[in-house]
């Protein structure tokens, strides 16, 4: 892996910024150059939110990703907005328990995952994002589980240590 870029997108409150943060920490722990750039604006729960992450061996230019290697879409507006920006041969992971897309592409690797439904069934309500991330990091082959676990530990605020275990369980659920 020399360069990796991703867009994580969904509704505010779905944890898309957190997915990006964990991914950025994976890059940091690998000793790479890393950038994380949130869309910021009058966004709140229910509005749209996304973030760009770059991991690279060389200094990162624009932190705003326009042609991602990977897109993680948690809702239909995000899927429709970013589907055509994914690099040919790139990766698409979307939550098909949230929406059924009309458009598709045959030049990318697309995976549908019922993450939100799965999270509810498993008592992991609210952290479908980590199920999605587990699958994304597995398919992207960025790093081993040990590094990803460390990245989660670094990303979870110290005021919520209990969330580490939940996040790890969701991550592994997405990986398998």
């Amino acid at each position: 892996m020399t360069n990796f870029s991703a867009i994580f997108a969904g509704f505010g409150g779905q944890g898309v910024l957190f997915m990006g943060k964990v991914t950025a920490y994976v890059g940091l722990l690998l000793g790479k150059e890393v950038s994380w750039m949130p869309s910021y604006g009058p966004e709140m729960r229910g509005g749209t939110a996304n973030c760009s992450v770059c991991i690279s061996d060389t200094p990162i230019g624009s932190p705003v990703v326009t042609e991602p290697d990977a897109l993680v879409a948690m809702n239909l507006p995000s899927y429709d907005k970013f589907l055509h920006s994914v690099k040919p041969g790139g990766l698409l992971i979307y939550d098909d328990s949230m929406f059924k897309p009309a458009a598709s592409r045959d030049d990318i690797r697309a995976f549908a995952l019922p993450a939100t439904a799965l999270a509810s069934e498993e008592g992991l309500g609210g952290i479908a994002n980590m199920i999605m991330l587990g699958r994304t990091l597995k398919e992207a082959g960025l790093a081993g589980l040990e590094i990803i676990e460390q990245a989660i530990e670094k990303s979870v605020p110290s005021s919520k240590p209990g969330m580490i275990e939940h996040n790890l369980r969701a991550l592994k659920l997405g990986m398998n």
Partner: protein
Amino acid sequence: MQRLLMKGNEAIAEAAIKAGCRHFFGYPITPQNEVCAYMSRRMPQVEGVFLQAESEIAAISMVLGASAAGARAMTSSSSPGISLKTEGLSYIAGSDLPALIVNVQRGGPGLGTIQPAQSDYNQATKAPGHGDLRLLVFAPSTVQEMVDCVFETFDLTEKYRMPGMLLCDGLLGQMMEPVIFPEVEVTPSEKPWALTGHGDKRQPNIITSLNLDPELSQSANLARFERYAEIEKTQARAESLMTEDADIVVVAYGACARIARSAVSAARAEGIKAGMLRPITVWPFPTQQILAAGKSAKALLAVEMSMGQMVHDVRTAVQFKKPVHFFGRTGGVVPTPNEVLEQLKIIDGGLKA
């Protein structure tokens, strides 16, 4: 030393604390709010002062007061808030006081947008307040450089007794990047002019920007401009990237320099001899560095998140002897590397035609 992943805004705040700043006065505004939020959390831990003022004008005036008493003081804001601070800024310059002012720019004019922009360039470098005055302006382009510039600006503003600015934008303030904090012992500079109480042991110090006698007022300005001239001679900084053999030299600073860097690499891959000159200080402007970088170039291209402000300084720097093109986005729109690459292709096509 540990690499930390931090937002630009938070890194500025931590760097200021590490540089010995214990007096922060602010007022909230997006996209610089993380500076205030971080300071409100950290300052009490280091026995410093975080104060959310009743307005931007109050905040900058508190900076003036703290600085007059010898403290390393700072404030931060974003474009509309900086406009309000210009009054205090002018008073700080007129009182020969050091201070750090951070501008995390957003699109304007007016309340504008909260998205990134570089349209306060003219304000920062040409007219940061009323009167004959200059502001030392650093324009970092990475989170690491934001940290390094905080240390540097504090030191230089104390050395030259003048206000200094970190000219950033919403993109740099909001993004996270790895950062290493330098482990330095900060030794505060001697400030014999500070208002610390004379205790009947020395003549009282007087700090004021009021100078009713025109002759005295003029000599104060002349003395200030002697310092400004020395700064222009010694402190202008820039980074040069592949300019030696470049046909086209892109000039860009701050966040735009990151975008230009990607475009220049892409242009090289396509056989276009492009290079980049990145001003790190925008006042003093790196005129000599641009003149040198542009010597063998056939054309230059200024890229900015504005309608074209720095481009005029670039034209002056090359003494109007080379064509200086301009590409900009405005009102909070961030240019993409592809858009800049397109410009380079057009200019290159023109050169070969």
